[in-house]
């Protein structure tokens, strides 16, 4: 309850205001229509805004007749059903076509009044001028569309870029089977930091590299691209993977202090009994050697991250890969896959590799298990690559 003096002051003020003026000069357009929409009463404000006179509206037109064609469809498919089912509508954005053909953006509230039997009796409509608001909304809508468009563009760009960082298909090497898989983190709409490459130096002489650069997105792509092309050009003259890592280390150190990576680097050379493999690791999980009938074992010596330390230390090991024997390389997205704080770990990886399988099946099996472990939402990229010395040439 207001204090008596405030109440009487209000009543005093109200008495001074003509009730008809309250209606006619209200700061909103006000219409009453029959249930089918025919206008039966309209206030001055509405007529001032739209330029119509009462004789053109009352008994002559329905509200829907004053709308744009698009607004009419919206009225019939949304506003009218809502009014008839819910009894009212609020803040419906429409445009009224004024007497001179211009469009007046409005917001509409409407209430359906029903008779004692529940039969629709009269619709009361309040119309608010929303010119400024609509202009602002149009700008917002435009900005939203532009943002969505640039996001689509960015995703497309990321995917195209990603494809340039991973060989589209594994190369065919006589006497050496190659299988690989790459799965970027998350929904796969960002450029990942894992990569691999397999390329020929001379006949029966190949370089295999699998790595993980720091970061994600465009910055990672820059580093990946730099590493990949540096490795490719260095490998032409540098036979030793260890020496190659040293030179790559210098290149990365001189390019940017933040650009570093881990790499597993193999040089494979065909001999009469299979392949001679020389391996060097730059802070990367060591390759696993898979021999029929024997448990998987690591091959090589650990080394430092590439591009982070000066001087750096890398070592090199050589082995012979006989027929039917395989080397398996992977990034840390495999052992560090997480589920509720639990890691996939080396154990599960070794188990997954234990049973014999064709090379593509082996890769699929590991990838499936790692993805399943994380319920198909990997938080890190996963790259897998396997080599197997085969009998035929």
């Amino acid at each position, binding site marked *: 309850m207001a204090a008596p003096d405030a109440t009487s002051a209000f009543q005093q003020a109200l008495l001074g205001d003509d009730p008809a003026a309250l209606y006619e000069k209200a700061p909103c357009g006000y219409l009453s229509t029959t*249930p*089918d*929409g025919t206008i039966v009463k309209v206030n001055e404000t509405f007529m001032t805004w739209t330029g119509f006179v009462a004789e053109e509206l009352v008994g002559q037109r329905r509200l*829907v007749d004053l709308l*744009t*064609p*698009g*607004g*009419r*469809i*919206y009225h*019939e*498919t*949304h506003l*009218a*059903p*809502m009014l*008839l*089912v*819910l*009894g*009212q509508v*609020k*803040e*419906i*954005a*429409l*445009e009224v076509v004024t007497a001179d053909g211009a469009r007046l953006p409005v917001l509409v509230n409407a209430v359906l009044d029903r008779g004692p039997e529940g039969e*629709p009796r009269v619709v009361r409509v309040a119309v608010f001028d929303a010119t400024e608001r*609509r202009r602002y*909304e149009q700008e*917002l*809508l435009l900005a939203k569309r532009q943002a969505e468009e640039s996001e689509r563009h960015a995703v497309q760009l990321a995917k195209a870029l990603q494809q340039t960082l991973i060989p589209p298909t594994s190369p065919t090497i006589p006497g050496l089977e190659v299988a690989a898989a790459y799965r970027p983190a998350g929904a796969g709409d960002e450029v990942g930091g894992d990569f691999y490459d397999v390329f020929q130096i001379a006949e029966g002489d190949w370089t295999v590299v699998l790595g993980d650069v720091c970061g994600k997105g465009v910055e990672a792509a820059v580093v990946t691209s730099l590493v990949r092309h540096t490795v490719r050009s260095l490998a032409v003259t540098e036979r030793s993977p260890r020496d190659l890592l040293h030179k790559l280390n210098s290149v990365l150190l001189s390019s940017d202090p933040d650009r570093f990576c881990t790499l597993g680097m193999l040089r494979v050379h065909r001999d009469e009994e299979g392949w001679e493999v020389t391996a060097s690791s730059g802070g990367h999980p060591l390759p696993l050697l898979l021999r029929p009938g024997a448990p998987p074992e690591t091959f090589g010596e650990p080394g430092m991250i590439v591009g982070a330390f000066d001087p750096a230390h890398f070592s090199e090991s050589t082995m012979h890969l006989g027929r039917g024997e395989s080397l398996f390389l992977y990034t840390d997205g495999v052992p560090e896959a997480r589920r509720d704080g639990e890691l996939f770990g080396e154990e599960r990886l070794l188990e997954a590799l234990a049973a014999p399988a064709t090379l593509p099946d082996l890769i699929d099996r590991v990838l499936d298990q790692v993805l399943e472990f994380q319920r198909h939402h990997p938080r890190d990229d996963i790259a897998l690559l396997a080599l197997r010395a085969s009998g035929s040439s």
Partner: protein
Amino acid sequence: MNVTRAHNVVDAGLPGGRVLLFAHGFGCDQNMWRYVAPHFESSHRVVLFDHVGAGGAQAPYDAERYASLEGYADDVVRICTELDLHDVVFVGHSVSAMIGVLAHLRAPEVFAALVLVGPSPRYINDDGYTGGFDRADIDDMLAALSSNYLGWSSAIAPAIMGTPDSPELGAELTQSFCRADPDIAERFARATFLSDNRADLPLVSVPTLVMQSRDDMIAPMAVGQYVAAAIPGSSLAVLDSSGHCPNLSAPDEVIRAMETFFAEGR
């Protein structure tokens, strides 16, 4: 996902009775039939559902599948198949009238009759054909749509439609009726208003009732007459109602027209 969850199927009325399958049009949901469907529950098995993206439908939206009305028609056939419905009288409002025609052509063995309320096989004017709209009008409507779905994504969107003065309607209805994801609504609008199903009408081979409001600016009289003339053996009932939704504004007229149609042995 089973079809009941996918399309919020409500299966009511007389068990074992003749099936009336009600389909809503663009814009709202199965509540479009709330003044008509209950009337038939004592004499028919009454099945209602929501199209993808509407009301309580949970079916995942697939932009490609629903780029044309065919995807919606497939859903209708799926509902009939999974609920094992036969001898179905399909009652479709607005765009669902054409969805029903397509479903009938796809699975003729399922449907016994069609009731088309405010049908239009093509909304845009064409050489010698009056659909009622120009292409520019449709673009204008899409703009009106996006303008009215501005607040959809924000957390307060459901509260906007709250009707504290009519609590008997239930919060769920007041929050969901005629509201949909704006992307889905826009795609459904395109599929609806850019469709052309005129060539399908002569292929209809079941008894058909075309219901036409005396005054409907979405599907004008000329369009209703066109549909009735194009479907062999169909009958046209002109309702003394105004607007595109006689199922809401003149439910008694709609019920009467359906009962007359059924009494004729259709």
